[in-house]
């Protein structure tokens, strides 16, 4: 193991590009199907694994002029079929409803990374209620994608904070009441699992069966798909790994689980990530690491050039091993 990885691990650095070269892989962009827009870093929660370092104390949020620029890009590019709205809790941005409504008018598929508890908690700083959200989502046929690390309280609350599991269950009931989660419904409700610690996710298919059985039998809840996501060794999760003396071990686990098929399916090949201030990135993780897309000049929504973006070289670094381990990991779950 140590010999095989000697060129990959040098001076405590993990060389993803070297791994690609060893596997004769080149991963250019294939298309831009999804614009993933991070519209605020503010959140009512402060989860242990959060790569965005979100919390109620964060104040960064996308301004209207930048929201409008994103909508203009969607309008001008029919090939961008999806907008994936994330945060933070994206519902805390005052232009959130506007963005959803206008994106739907453009006939785009709208996905929202909804943390469930925001419906119950409301805005953590102003106290503004967010109880309208399930009905709002239903009215605009938004695909709701929500983190629920496990079907039991222990793992969920350990990762997302005390009381989160029970609030999430209450919020899921409200979504089910709107028609979300039924097998034949257009109202899609997907859950996201990520491991509670320094281990890889189990098979997406088998976990989905467990989640469906347990949530139905214990709470009478339904959902459509479960997405398994590998914990990214950056920011809060990296700090936790380092505090527990596990960082190098976790990185070696990811490297040893490198899967070329998963590498071919990495989401950065078909997605662009936009930060609250309009900068463009290959993915949300690169965004949080400040690895902006750079052609002749730093790329933003204000100098958006799809031809240049399709010719770009995707910026890889050690965290990319998280997306290529095992069955692969993306915002849409396993890639293999």
């Amino acid at each position, binding site marked *: *193991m*140590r010999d095989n990885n000697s060129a990959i691990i040098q001076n405590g650095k993990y060389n993803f590009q070297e791994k690609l070269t060893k596997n004769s892989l080149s991963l250019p962009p294939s298309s831009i199907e999804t614009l993933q827009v991070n519209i605020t870093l503010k959140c009512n929660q402060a989860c242990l694994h959060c790569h965005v370092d979100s919390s109620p104390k964060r104040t960064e949020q996308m301004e209207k002029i930048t929201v409008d620029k994103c909508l203009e890009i969607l309008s001008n590019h029919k090939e961008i079929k999806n907008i994936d709205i994330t945060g933070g809790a994206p519902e805390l941005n005052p232009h959130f409803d506007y963005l959803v409504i206008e994106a739907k008018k453009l006939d785009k598929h709208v996905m929202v990374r909804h943390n469930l508890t925001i419906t119950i908690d409301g805005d953590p700083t102003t106290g503004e209620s967010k109880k309208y959200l399930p009905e709002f989502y239903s009215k605009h046929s938004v695909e709701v994608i929500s983190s629920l690390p*496990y079907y*039991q309280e*222990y*793992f969920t609350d350990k990762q997302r904070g005390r009381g989160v599991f029970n609030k999430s269950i209450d919020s899921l009931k409200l979504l089910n009441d709107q028609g979300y989660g039924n097998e034949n419904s257009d109202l899609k409700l997907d859950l996201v699992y990520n*491991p509670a*610690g320094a*281990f*890889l*996710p*189990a*098979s997406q298919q*088998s*976990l989905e069966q*467990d989640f469906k059985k347990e949530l139905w039998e214990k709470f009478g809840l339904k959902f459509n798909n479960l997405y398994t996501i590998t914990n990214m060794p950056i920011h809060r999760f990296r700090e936790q790994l380092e505090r527990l003396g596990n960082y190098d071990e976790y990185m070696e686990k990811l490297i040893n689980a490198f899967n070329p098929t998963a590498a071919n399916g990495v989401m950065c090949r078909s997605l662009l990530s936009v930060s609250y201030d309009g900068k463009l990135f290959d993915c949300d993780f690169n965004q949080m690491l400040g690895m902006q897309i750079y052609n002749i000049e730093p790329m933003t929504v204000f100098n958006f050039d799809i031809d240049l973006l399709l010719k770009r070289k995707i910026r890889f670094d050690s965290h990319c091993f998280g997306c290529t381990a095992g069955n692969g990991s993306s915002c849409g779950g396993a890639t293999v």
Partner: protein
Amino acid sequence: MNYYESKDLGRFAEVGKFKPDLMKKFFDYYNAATNTDGALSKREKALIALAISHFKQCPYCIEAYTTASLESGANPDQMTEAIHVAASMAAGMNLVHGVQMLNILEKSGV
């Protein structure tokens, strides 16, 4: 230096430095038995292996199958129940020998 070092688990395959054919046969068998979904799921196999790891008190195996259990979707409740099965079996195996003791006592006229 300790006799058991966690990182040594990653060197398991080096035992095949000599007589590699035997080690290969072992690994083929081991992987086929433990690392595939069959009549038992990988999760069920991981939990059985976790129980045996405790029964045999193998630190390498406890580490490997704690992780394997988590990575097959098991939770701490299930894992803890598995090791209680091992512990209760161990207790039962001790206690059932009490019948031997009773036999000797009876033979002795006690």
